[in-house]
């Protein structure tokens, strides 16, 4: 795996490191370790500490920590059904996480995964419900979802390259606008007349849904997502475009002087990212949800942002992080049923996990 300059700068922040000596003050034993193993040891301790803090928290809420961890694992990994659900949820999270990772190569911060997922699902619903359902409906839905996500991300890309507006903030604002667009559609324009008052769109015809595979709950969305991940990896690691993105992300001024068309590259990274998230939204809709309803994304877009950080914006690691977070996010249901906890408590666990790489960032830089 090639080292990415983007990650180096992305974790640095404004830390000027002036007051910190090159060797941090460490207990004697730690100082004798090499930087690599020191980093590994400290990260591991960090994750253990995160899990311990979460354990204390659930104990405060009157649950048994051991039982809680058992529920998290049992309800997401230990049986076939749960495992399949984890895999299905990992599709939108993983693709939205790649939507963060691709622009991050060029030094852009896409916090708009949530809005891009929503717009993908909206466009897919539009096509899926309006068009005559046929054998290839789901393909049309995927394409339209990707286009809608790309367009939504392109808004921020254009605002950034033409007007200089920070994409971190515009993508964030567009999430809220996308949510309002979706709510308008499901409460008014597209409301299902047979939905007994529920705010939801008409359900997709069976033929328009993603076909299931091998008689399981898994649909071909899993395959599509795997192919897309592979293609994204290839684009980033093995093509001139991927290389140029890294040059722009590493040193924009140098890239400009070398004759790279910086603005087009920035914009293209946003468009590709948005398309990935939009596709994720469409696959989630056509394969799992089958109709548009509020909370369809359940903050997956933000979970994806954190997953991309945990995977340091490298496609394969990002997908691994997305799988992990998919399991954690899904375990909220189990915790609610088995341990009587509020399901949103898993947000805390997600945040604690992502805190670790941020807190140990310095050790990783020394190890690199």
């Amino acid at each position, binding site marked *: 795996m090639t080292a990415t300059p983007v990650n180096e700068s992305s974790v640095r922040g404004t830390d000027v490191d002036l007051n910190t000596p090159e060797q941090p003050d460490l207990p004697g034993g730690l100082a004798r370790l090499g930087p690599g193993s020191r980093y590994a040891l400290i990260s591991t301790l960090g994750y253990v500490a995160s899990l311990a803090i979460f354990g204390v928290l659930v104990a405060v809420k009157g649950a048994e920590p051991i039982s809680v961890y058992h529920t998290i694992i049992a309800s997401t990994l230990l049986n076939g059904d749960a495992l399949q659900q984890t895999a299905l949820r990992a599709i939108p999270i993983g693709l939205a996480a790649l939507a963060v990772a691709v622009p991050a190569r060029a030094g852009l911060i896409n916090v708009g995964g949530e809005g891009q997922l929503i717009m993908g699902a909206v466009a897919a619903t539009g096509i899926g419900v309006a068009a005559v359902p046929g054998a290839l409906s789901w393909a049309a839905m995927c394409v339209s979802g990707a286009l809608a996500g790309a367009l939504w991300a392109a808004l921020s890309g254009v605002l950034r390259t033409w007007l200089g507006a920070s994409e971190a903030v515009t993508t964030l604002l567009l999430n809220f606008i996308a949510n309002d667009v979706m709510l308008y559609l499901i409460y008014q324009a597209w409301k299902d007349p047979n939905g007994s008052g529920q705010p939801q769109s008409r359900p997709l015809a069976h033929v328009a849904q993603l076909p299931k595979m091998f008689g399981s709950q898994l649909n071909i969305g899993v395959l599509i997502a795997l192919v897309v991940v592979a293609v994204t990896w290839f684009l980033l690691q093995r093509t001139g475009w991927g290389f140029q993105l890294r040059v*722009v992300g590493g040193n924009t001024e140098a890239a400009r002087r070398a004759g790279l068309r910086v603005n087009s590259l920035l914009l293209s990274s946003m468009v590709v990212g948005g398309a990935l998230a939009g596709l994720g939204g469409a696959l989630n809709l056509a394969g799992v949800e089958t109709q548009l309803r509020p909370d369809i994304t359940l903050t997956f877009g933000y979970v994806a942002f954190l997953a991309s950080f945990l995977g340091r914006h490298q496609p394969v690691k990002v997908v691994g992080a997305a799988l992990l977070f998919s399991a954690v996010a899904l375990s909220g249901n189990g915790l609610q049923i088995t341990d009587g906890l509020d399901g949103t408590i898993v947000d805390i666990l997600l945040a604690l996990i992502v805190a670790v790489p941020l807190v140990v960032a310095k050790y990783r830089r020394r190890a690199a």
Partner: protein
Amino acid sequence: MNGVEQTLIGGVSGGTAILLPALGELIGERAGVINLGTEGAMLAGALGAYAMTESSGVIWYGIIAGMLAGAVVGLAHSWITVRRGGDQIASGLLLWFLALGVTSVFGTEFVGTAITPLSNIAIPGLHSIPWVGVILFDQNILVYAGYVLVAVIWFVFYRTRVGLILRATGERPEVVAATGGKPQLVQIVAVTIGACLGGLGGAQLSIGYVGNWFNDMTSGYGFVAVAVVLFAAWRPVRVLGGAYLFGIVLAAASVLQAHGVSVNQYLLDALPYLVTLLALAVFARRGRSETPEALTRSLSRSG
């Protein structure tokens, strides 16, 4: 009272819930640290203030609790970003997530309860100025705190040594360090005070404006506050204008509806974000040269 007055009164009151966090964000960004955790600080402040007021019955304790809850988020953000060198955007988002989880888990018992919100205090003399009086000088204490803070922050920024060091830290931390200053300390203090104000903004929502608590009650206000600081080009007075603009758009929406004007509800809901986005688009290029230099490193790493 006509619709325009109602809109402006509501705009100043609702705008304060953006103004306070935006001023806090301004302090942090002037020191070179962007904090998307402002949204989390607001949530923590909203619940902290509400829970304390509800259980103690003393609204002042609530205000203090709101600020402290916000400060905790700010302290965490500055520790991760300044001391540990973690990415500012990621740290802000994860603290928002943390606050979202913590407030929803610990706030459940308060959902459905209500308190009497902060009462308005008419300022003697000033409040009888025609028109302006009812809009600006018959509000609650947190609204007045907003006025005072804008003035104080402006004064500190541009007329004191502390302000000079703060702004220098946001531009060139290494220069501050070379002259014997402590840029990291400045950033930690600035971010923590900033998040205190974020907590106060959350308090304005829960105990100042509505008098109850519900999950995710800040619904993106903290992010709007960050956007306001950007399009206000890091100037205190413009931050005030931007925050009230947001408040007025929100208030206009509900006043229009109350007067039976049929405007699409979802368009109204999206309007504040659209206006913020538009303002950002219009003012972004103008503000760009004024971006604190240390901040540009974390706000955008290319271009």
